[in-house]
């Protein structure tokens, strides 16, 4: 996906960009509303992440202008003030959603997914491995043409495996990606979700293999 990140704090912009890039997204950064305008002229984006307090104006005004010019790009407002009235205002001026800084990237991803699904935009982003076809937006997994719905955590787990087939993913790594840091996680939580995902993959040549003491990996059984 291609993001336009409008954020004037350079440290924050850099870290958000690094974090999104790590997941394979393209990110352009604008440090002011003027730069953001230029970026929108030059390219098209799947999603705009918009800060509210910017050096050359209020992000909400930019949003209103964007909507008035019939810009259809979905917008998620990032607010640091988190004043309740700010949030209500942001949605009134046409934002698709808002997220309060500091945010959990898992939450940002979830919100992006929800917004994009609501908008029905974005080209089908599917990934395939062996006889599996994984549709991230629709949260479905097709096993040799047989469509199965995935629940959110199953889908995110599949996302992690299919992005790095054959690579061993440690239990700790999976826990960090699947659960929020402030939420208590039991020791066998990952086993539970891996078990569920395996059930959804029944009948496939692909399987999630346990590597004792190291973690799990997605492999293809060759007959």
């Amino acid at each position, binding site marked *: 996906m291609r993001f336009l990140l409008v954020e004037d*704090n350079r440290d924050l912009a850099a870290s958000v960009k690094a974090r999104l890039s790590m997941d394979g997204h393209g990110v352009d950064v604008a440090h002011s509303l003027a730069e953001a305008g230029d970026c929108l002229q030059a390219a098209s984006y799947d999603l705009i992440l918009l800060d509210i307090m910017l050096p050359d104006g209020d992000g909400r005004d930019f949003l209103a202008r964007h909507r008035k010019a019939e810009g259809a790009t979905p917008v998620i407002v990032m607010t640091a003030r988190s004043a309740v009235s700010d949030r209500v205002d942001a949605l009134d001026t046409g934002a698709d959603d808002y997220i309060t800084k500091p*945010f959990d990237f898992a939450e940002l991803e*979830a919100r992006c997914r929800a917004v994009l699904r609501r908008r029905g935009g974005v080209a089908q982003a599917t990934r395939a491995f062996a006889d599996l076809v994984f549709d991230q937006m629709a949260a479905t997994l097709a096993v040799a043409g047989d469509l199965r719905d995935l*629940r959110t*955590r199953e889908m995110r787990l599949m996302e992690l495996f299919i992005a790095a087939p054959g690579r061993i993913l440690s239990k700790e790594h999976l826990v960090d990606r699947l659960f929020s840091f402030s939420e*208590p996680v039991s020791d066998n939580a990952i086993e539970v979700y891996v078990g569920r995902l395996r059930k959804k993959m029944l009948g496939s040549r692909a399987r999630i293999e346990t590597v004792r003491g190291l973690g799990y990996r997605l492999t293809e059984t060759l007959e």
Partner: protein
Amino acid sequence: MRVTPVSLRQRLVMPLLALSAVLSVLIYLSVRIGADRASEATLDAVLGAAALAMAEEMRAGEGGAVVDLSPVTFSMLAAMGEERIFYRVALNGQTLTGYDDLPAPATPPTALSPVYYTVPFRGSELRVAAVSRSLMVDNRASPLTVLLGQTREGQKAISTRLANRAAGLGLLVFLAAVPLSLLAAGSLLRPIATLAEAVGRRGPRDLRPIRHPAPAELAPFVTALNGFIGRLRGTLSQTETFIAEAAHHIRTPLSVMRNEAELALRQTAEEATRARLRSLIRAVDDSARSAGQLLDHATVLFRADQKALAVVDLAAMLAAMVARFTPMAEMKDMALRLTPADRALPVAGDAVLVEAALRNIIDNAIKYSPQDSDIDLHARMANGFAVIEVCDRGRGLGGSAVQGLRVRFQRGSNVGDVAGSGLGLTIVDEAATAMGGHFALTEREGGGTCATLSLPLQG
């Protein structure tokens, strides 16, 4: 030593009463003295005229004077009431007729105009008129003196009666002044009482300026009071702005810290470092959350003061909040199951307060529920209230007193490992109260908690 200030009523009534007392005494004295003087002058004139008439009736006779008192003169004296009359006629200092011991005036009368004086005589006060004239006796001019005395007992009695009446009149005036001055004080002080009542009736957070009509004399007081209220509002709003700015300045670096920690976590394989990074991220989340709730709390308090109530559709708000929280619930594989109301639920509320209340209720429900569980949300109306019920399958109240959970910074006894500030339910409770509604927590049958928010229906 503390001095109790004299009450305004007392300050007003006392001078009024003193004034009317002085007025009453003055009335009494002027009636009494005036009447005395007037009657004395009249009686004196008659007495003088009678004395003159007697003097005129003296004729010179052989070797002396002839006194020939006419009946007219005596009838004149008789007309003055039942008084006793004493007289003495003297020629050359020798008494011709009458009471020899009737005292002569201190200064002997010279002309025909009478001299009046009062002397004690035979046990009573006597008013005497003295006149003198010359009488030719034996071809010699001899001084003739007529003293005519009269008791004034009848006149005294009349004047005493008059004085009593005057005293009665004065007392009446004074007695009439008492209720009148109390009434005047009451009517003068009424605007102060009305104003005090208007200010006293206000709720604890009502900081609107006083618009109550007040007399011009009270205007400086009302202006000063409004100035004070204005400063208080200013301080409150500054506090809100300050918290908002502070939150901004804390949250942006916290975001950088959290992102960097998450990046480092992704890039490190060493478990000890990863554990440190995880606890760092948890701490950041905790402080960000607290900052947010402190701000929420300040905002709710501030908005509650404003009383900017408009019609808000609670059902639509709830649906929007459910949509908003669905991604977060899904992250835990939870579902938000909304049973919508069959019609709009308009309440008189502040959208910002309603949002804060609903957000904190749902956020709490998600936070304290296990993964894979569902949260049931109902919107309905009951007894003139729009009621929102949010029931989870979480850990329940754990025996914590429901009242206690609404107290600032107090958390349940069973929250243990879940991050929180203890402000969430306080915010909900305060928002509900500000809009004339209420908030309750109950244990749910079969485990979990039900949070109920009721707001009065509009129209």
